[in-house]
């Protein structure tokens, strides 16, 4: 399979023969699965293709020219930065061009005004290190240390550090977007100059369309540059220690410290998070699933199952940890003050401090470590909810209940309600539900569970991330809107009338249900006879 010869020749004139190929072996290297986020699932098997060609542009101008050629020759294309986000960031149709953005690795840091400007190929951990070298920090979160910062910030971008740093869209100061037809749009204060000091541009801004809750997965153009806000951190170095795989950042304990508290019950756990937020202390406040602790303790996959096998519904039910990261942003005295306040809160709520390592392995330079895959081989964070703290916790419990029906093939986790935490000093609560399975098992149940979660969210009126391109649009759109789907499709038609940019997103999940026989029994919503997109 390949793209049209005329298009190929035109593309070659943009980047040269070194950075364009339709070689089958190289294209095979861009296959979505079989491993990875959401991989091994029906969606990956049914909806992803090997690219017809791969191109590696270096500049925004090259991206524009590529996109214009794709429009001229009607070559579908998909933007791809680091490729971590599973099937959704890979080709969905035959003879598609994969635009690999890793060479867009522009980086600059403005120490005085606290921001960085990055290209699509720049990942999280180097940004964090550069920021820390200048007394600042940032959170990109989402896909973690090795995933593209831009991809994360237009998709997910949250982590425990969001307790203080806040939601991802608030950190985007300026964006350079190549629209699906090749036109260049600059957003935020970049719209009126080169100074990315403020996230909002003049008049109506496209930022919401690009990102929204969790983004449009590359179907509305290619982001080539982004200015990201950094915030003041503290001056002491976080020193790397240990030998792989047992590495961590040694924390300067008078300025940075994790403390784990065991709370007596759920109410106290949530109340602790509220109170910490109210007191405006801490850099992170989170409750992680118990199986993460088993991952951290285990030396290997086999040991994980030994440790996890010792747990039960009873231990999960009584697991009320609150993990707090204290940061002495301004001084050691401030840190002491925060710790005193924290101790007062915990004392009142019956929280008992537990031994905590003086290192950080997962969050400050990482987030969502790839170790998630260790246990079963396959993983996805099936949903994220941003709500009030008390509501966020309820969401995970509903998910855990629904999951029972699909275990197996899902991993037995004794009803663990997932991860929840404080965002923006307790003004928001965040819940994330994670599922695990072995892709060699029959994964029909996982596919069904995924879809059923959407129906559950509709039924229970959860404010969920599983909208737009994440689930069948004709299922979720009429229920969240009531014409959300029509609006989204009009947006797509307006900006990408030929649907050359990552087709058939945002109708990819609708297509999947149509094509996958095993999904049909679950289809109880109306769809048009023919999906409204160019063939």
């Amino acid at each position, binding site marked *: 399979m390949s793209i049209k010869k005329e298009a190929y020749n035109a593309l070659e004139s943009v980047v040269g023969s070194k*950075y364009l*190929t339709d*070689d*089958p*072996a*190289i294209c*095979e*290297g*861009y*296959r979505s699965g*079989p*491993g*990875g986020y959401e*991989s091994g699932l029906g969606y990956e098997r049914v909806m992803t293709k090997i690219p017809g060609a791969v191109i*590696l542009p270096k500049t925004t101008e090259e991206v524009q020219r590529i996109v214009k050629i794709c429009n001229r020759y009607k070559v579908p294309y998909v933007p791809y930065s680091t*490729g*971590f986000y599973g099937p959704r960031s890979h080709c969905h149709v035959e003879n598609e061009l994969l635009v*690999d953005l*890793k*060479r867009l*690795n522009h980086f600059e840091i403005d120490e005085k005004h606290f921001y960085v400007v990055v290209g699509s190929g*720049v*990942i*999280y*951990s*180097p*940004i*964090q*290190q*550069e920021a820390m*070298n200048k007394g600042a920090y940032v959170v990109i979160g989402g896909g*973690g*240390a*090795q*995933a593209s910062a831009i991809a994360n910030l237009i998709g997910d971008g949250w982590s425990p550090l969001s307790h203080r740093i806040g939601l991802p869209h608030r950190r985007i100061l300026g964006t350079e977007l190549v629209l699906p037809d090749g036109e260049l749009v600059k957003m935020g204060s970049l719209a009126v100059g080169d100074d990315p000091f403020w996230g909002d541009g003049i008049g109506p801004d496209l930022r919401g369309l690009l990102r929204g809750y969790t983004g449009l997965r590359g179907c509305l153009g290619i982001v080539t540059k982004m200015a990201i806000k950094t915030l003041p951190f503290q001056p002491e170095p976080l020193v*790397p220690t240990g*030998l*792989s*795989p047992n*590495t*961590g950042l040694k924390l300067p304990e008078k300025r940075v410290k994790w403390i784990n508290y065991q709370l007596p019950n759920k109410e106290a756990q949530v109340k602790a998070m509220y109170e910490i937020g109210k007191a405006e202390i801490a850099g992170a406040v989170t409750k992680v699933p118990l199986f993460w602790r088993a991952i951290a303790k285990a030396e*290997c*996959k*086999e040991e994980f*199952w*030994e440790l*996890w*096998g010792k747990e039960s519904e009873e231990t999960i039910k009584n697991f009320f940890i609150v993990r707090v990261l204290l940061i002495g942003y301004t001084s050691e005295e401030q840190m002491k003050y925060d710790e005193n306040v924290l101790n007062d809160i915990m004392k009142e709520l019956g929280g008992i401090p537990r031994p905590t390592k003086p290192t950080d392995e997962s969050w400050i*330079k990482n987030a969502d470590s*790839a*170790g998630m*895959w*260790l*246990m079963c*081989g396959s993983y996805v964070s099936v949903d994220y909810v941003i709500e009030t703290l008390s509501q966020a916790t309820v969401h995970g419990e509903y998910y855990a209940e629904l999951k029972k029906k699909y275990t197996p*093939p899902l*991993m037995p986790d004794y009803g663990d309600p997932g991860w929840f935490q404080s965002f923006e000093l307790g003004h928001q609560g965040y819940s994330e539900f994670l599922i695990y399975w*072995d892709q*060699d*098992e029959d994964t029909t149940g996982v596919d069904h569970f995924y879809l059923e979660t959407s129906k559950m969210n509709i039924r229970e009126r959860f404010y969920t991330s599983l909208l737009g391109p994440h689930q069948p649009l004709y299922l979720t759109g009429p229920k969240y809107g009531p014409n959300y789907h029509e609006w989204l499709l009009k947006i797509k038609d307006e900006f990408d009338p030929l649907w050359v940019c990552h087709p058939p997103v945002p109708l990819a999940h609708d297509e999947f249900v149509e094509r996958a026989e095993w999904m049909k029994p679950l289809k109880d919503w109306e769809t048009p006879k023919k999906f409204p997109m160019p063939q």
Partner: protein
Amino acid sequence: MRKEEMFDTPKKKVSLDVTNLENFVYDMSRCIKCKGCYWVEHTYMPGINFSVRCPSNLWNDFDAYGAFGKMRIGIAIQEGRLKWTDKLLEIIYADPLCGACDVGCKRNLDLEIELTLEALRIKAVKDGVGPMPAHKKIAKNIETKHNQFGAVHENRKKWISKDINVAEKADVLYFVGCSSSYVNQGIAKSTAKILNAAGTDFMLMGDEWCCGNTLYSVGMIDEAREIAKRNIEAVKASGAKTLLVSCAECYRMWKVDYPKMLNIATADLGFEVIHLIEFADKAIANNSLKPKKSVDVRFTYHDACSVSRLCDPWTPWEGERGWMGTVSPRLKRRRGQQGLYFQARNILNAIPGAKFVEMPRTRENALCCGAGRGTKEAFPELAQFSAKQRIDEVKYVSAEVLVSACPWCKTNFTQAIKENGDGIKVMDISEFILSSLEI
């Protein structure tokens, strides 16, 4: 996990036998493209510069040249979906198999990346398409002249000068290797003098042959296995208790790949295998080696792959894979933790007068020089590219001398520096130690 809670997952026989790519289908299919194999591990991530540890994918940006691409390609090869082509051979062979991807993956996913890459090359040879023409020439040289270079076999011991004492019989046998015997004789001389200075008698093999590193590394396992048998027999016949090497590639071959090919444990070789680094570290600690002469330079150290992330001892393993991909019996995975990282630094910090500065990428995160395992011979431009990347790092820390522990690194760096005119001196650790001894 309690039995009643486990699903009925059929068990599959599996082993670490690299002659069968099927053994690594699980590993290939569980790669998640996190690219921990490509980037420096996040805790040690130095910043925007020097952030990559994979020389192949740094040299060629397409995903296919990274381990994550090769895992997908490997499955396609195993399933017969991809035909061998020149480009495919380039993807498989333009790679120094430096192990950076393997340790990166083992921080998170514990997949056997290095063994998979080796198995892919063995399959290429088995399928009649590998190795590369340059490798075939080396194989011919080894077959006819018992050394990589096609040099005269009888000249192998010509490096021995009058001021070096070689014993007829000793507990320690110094295996010199091709490079130090013919090209980097300073390493052989320095090693011998260090042994002499420490009062440790050593002997040489009566008739030393190549260790077979390139043969094994390019997938010619049958030929490499024959050499392994021959060399092990020769050591046993000599009565040596310890085999000492000064070449990182020889070290890995003797310690890891010989046992791997013969399906025995390193501990069952019948003798101990050590690198000069281990010897010198102990000798300095017990005062038998006294680096007293001041060496007034600012220097840095390059962790050669085969004395670092690639040298954990080998233990054969076969068993079954079942529930959630777990294996039984328990597999002690090789994660590069037994590399000679600290021993080398103990030595270097004991050199008086010398100012040791670390590069941003060190130990398991070091960027390979790019020369090893058949790469320089078949893809010299990749070897030069990687060496230049590393030299940029040497310059970044303002070092005057670059020290390594492998003659192949020394040759590659020296050539790259010569081409670039960088004025940095490259020394092997043996030469660096010798420069601090009052002899």
